């Protein structure tokens, strides 16, 4: 029952916001709902909460089943941290019809939480789409200049992907003994190896588009660039995790043999994507695009590690799901603060922020280190484990993927150098008083970065049961 209430918090807040226009109350409700959800998430993680199970569509035998295991918990925590962080950090931004904006954001949050909690394939599909539709409106109304075309591409791309998944779900469902969408039933669906491989491909397309991995990534940099920054944060910190979540939750248990059979191909694609994105990131001048490509590279690495089907690699990816979210969120908030104050995202036009706002520069350096995965930062733990598994899979693959670490250092430090140091540029001169809200959020996030980097054991503990399910027979 608690899980249902937890899911309803953002939905109720979203409905309430439709009737409240005053900006201060809007911010207040947004932050309050976000923090309440965060408390709920902590409760779910620390205490054992029972599943919520109710009959939903008796005629199809689909159930409204919400359950939280380690995998769900870590992503719920990420989602619950991200949204209040975004709301606080962007509370000073000027937005038309802010109440509608925040309301749609909260609906997205509800969709994401639903995706991470659903234990029934049809319900999962529902939430998967529910998370997408508010984003479509958010980006198309409040986005950049080319927003409509770009968002449309993003929407059709992901919608098509999810339709493929729907066929996969129907294919498995129609072959289950008890006609049920529950994971356990789908797992024992009576399908031939060929059918299983087809269903695997159908699911995989949906997840691959969402993550995205090469060659399905073309929607992403444009979408990130054109979205309003608050939405970009949601997209890159949380929403891309839906794809990885899908792989761990659905692909790994449902199609064990097809999963292994396609591992080579997927890993090669991921490594191509990692290198490709890293090289493009080096050439970027726009901070937003740089972070977007850097994110593609990191997601590719997580995907490759998952497909090694090695306990160490999967553990690394599980940790990295959380860490990458926090790091990239920090980078986006910094980019947003800089854009709001200087009016530009071009690294050429920036420079010398350390002289104007030393705190911001220090924070930028901190998150840059986390993005490169230096030891003591949270990303180091995950990436170390993931490279470990890739090395066991194939040293050459690990070496190729390893180049991306060097490349990450190049583009990230290059960005830091151009933005934070050097002469104070004209644009930087426009910077006024520091944005206290954003800096507060950034400090909290940076504390999380270093605490989980030095003492990651709690994250290991949370995800232990998922690993056990996947690897212990």
């Amino acid at each position, binding site marked *: 029952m608690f899980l249902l209430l937890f899911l309803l918090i953002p939905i109720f807040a979203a409905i309430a916001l439709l009737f409240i226009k005053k900006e201060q109350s809007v911010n207040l409700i947004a932050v309050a709902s976000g923090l309440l959800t965060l408390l709920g998430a902590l409760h779910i993680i620390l205490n054992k909460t029972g599943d919520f199970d109710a009959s939903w*569509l*008796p*005629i*199809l035998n689909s159930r409204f089943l919400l359950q939280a295991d380690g995998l769900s918990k870590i992503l719920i925590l990420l989602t619950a941290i991200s949204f209040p962080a975004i709301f606080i950090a962007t509370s000073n931004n000027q937005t038309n019809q802010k109440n509608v904006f925040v309301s749609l954001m909260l609906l997205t949050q509800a969709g994401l939480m639903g995706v991470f909690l659903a234990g029934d394939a049809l319900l999962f*599909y*529902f939430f998967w*789409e*529910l998370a997408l*539709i508010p984003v479509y*409106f958010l980006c*198309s*109304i409040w986005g950049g200049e080319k*927003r*409509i075309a770009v968002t*449309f591409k993003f*929407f*059709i791309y992901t*919608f*098509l992907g999810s*339709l*493929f998944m*729907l*066929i996969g779900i*129907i*294919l498995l*469902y*129609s072959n289950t003994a008890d006609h049920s969408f529950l994971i356990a039933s789908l797992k024992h669906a009576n399908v031939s190896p060929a059918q299983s491989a*087809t269903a695997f491909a159908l699911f995989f397309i949906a997840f691959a588009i969402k993550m995205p991995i090469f060659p399905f990534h073309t929607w992403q940099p444009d979408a990130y660039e054109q979205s309003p920054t608050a939405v970009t944060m949601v997209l890159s910190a949380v929403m891309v995790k839906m794809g990885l979540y899908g792989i761990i939750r659905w692909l790994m248990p449902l199609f064990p043999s097809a999963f292994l059979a396609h591992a080579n191909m997927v890993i090669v694609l991921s490594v191509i994507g990692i290198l490709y994105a890293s090289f493009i990131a080096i050439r970027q001048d726009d901070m937003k695009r740089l972070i977007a490509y850097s994110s593609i590279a990191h997601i590719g690495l997580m995907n490759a590690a998952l497909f090694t089907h090695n306990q160490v690699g999967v553990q690394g990816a599980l940790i990295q799901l959380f860490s990458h979210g926090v790091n990239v969120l920090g980078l986006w908030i910094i980019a947003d603060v800089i854009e709001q104050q200087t009016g530009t995202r071009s690294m050429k036009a920036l420079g010398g922020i350390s002289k104007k706002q030393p705190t911001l520069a220090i924070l930028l350096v901190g998150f840059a280190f986390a993005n490169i995965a230096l030891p003591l930062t949270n990303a180091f733990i995950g990436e170390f484990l993931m490279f470990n598994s890739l090395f066991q899979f194939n040293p050459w693959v690990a070496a190729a993927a390893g180049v991306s670490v060097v490349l990450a250092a190049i583009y990230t430090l290059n960005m830091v150098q151009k933005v934070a140091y050097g002469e104070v540029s004209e644009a930087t001169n426009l910077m006024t008083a520091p944005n206290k809200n954003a800096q507060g959020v950034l400090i909290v996030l940076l504390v999380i970065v270093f605490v989980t980097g030095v003492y990651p054991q709690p994250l290991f503990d949370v995800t232990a049961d998922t690993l056990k399910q996947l690897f212990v027979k």
Partner: protein
Amino acid sequence: MNAIIVSTLLGVVMMFCSWITTSAKAQRNIGLVGMLILIVANLAQLKGWWVIDFDTKGMLAFNQIGLFANMTLFILTFLYVWINGEEIEKVGNNHTADYYAIFFFILCGVSVLTSFDNLLMLFIGIEILSIPLYILTGSDKKNLLSNEASLKYFLMGSFSTGILLLGITFIYGATGSFHLTMPVVNPTTHMVTEHFLMSAGLILLFASMNFKVSAAPFHFWTPDVYDGAPTVFTSFMATIVKAAGFIAFIKVFETQRMALGFTWYIILSFVIVSTLLIGNITAVFQRSVKRMLAYSSIAQAGFMLFALYGNSIFNTEAILLYIVAYSLATIGLFAVLVKMKDYSFESFNGLAKQHPVLAFLTTLFLFSLAGIPLTAGFFAKYYMLNALLTAGAGLWLLIVAILFAAVSVFYYFKLVQAMYFTPGTPAINEIDKTYEFKLWVLAALILILGVFPSMLFNYLYF
């Protein structure tokens, strides 16, 4: 039998209604009450409370599914008339009662088409349905486009009826009977004995039925007729009439398709794929919303044809849900369209600013047509795909279907973009609160079916 007799009587009553009152409003109310009487009469037969029954010598056979289909179509017609009542009065000059008479005659045709057991009754049903439609299409007498559409529809319709009759004749030649009987199965091989006259007859029948439901390559009349007809009547033609056509289509081929053997799947797949292709791709390039909806109705017919692929309860459920979901959304969209001053996409620009509620409702209808979850359209598509897979169709057909479903998002969302993201002043007439309320009812039905599609079927089995 109740529905056939009551609808005929009501039609006659409406014909002479202008003797009683000349007020359009009173005539509309009489029409609405008539619809309710019709619904109750049909319900009485469904529940077995009161049945007019006599021996039709096997010409008609009433079963649960047919009566249930009647029920849904009558209720949809009621909703349609309830919402569009005032607009119907504006067409032509003061013929309101006549239009209602025509509606009742069409519903009589619908009831025949849901219960025929004999090919002659199929022919009669289709004629009863079609001839009033030719009149409705041309009812805007001063409008040249309307006249053109009517003439086109009449000529093409008669031609297709000719093909239908030829097909029936061939089948009669092969079997010596007009009855819809099970094809002859060879007891040793368990194969259906194929007979060239039978096959030729069925293929002709297939072509003519495709014409009625506007499936490609027999769809050419649709855009012109839908575009030329007065918008309120296009709404009726694209929903209730089309749905009745589908029910008849399925009824004929449920059993008879076996006589075609494997050929059936080839021609059906061909028609499905070409309908989806032509409907969706052409819709993308339309500039007028009305014409886009005409092509969208062709495209949706492609999805509905999936119900012909198999022969199980899944198919029946799927087509019924699809009909309801599609009709609710289409009636809603046309009800919005009717209020627009012109039908271009541009006239919707900025609607969300000026009429947020109306824009939201339109978006919901479009979502349902596109098959987005939480709307009835999603489950309609889900049931169709499920039925298709259960019937053993190749996966390629499903993939073609979803690819075109994604294309359909493209043109439905073009309207959403115009309403929400393009600034401008919408060219829209005044809309009062009652009208909005009526649209809310449609939207509520769509949402309810989008969360609990089983509500519909609860009534099917009891």
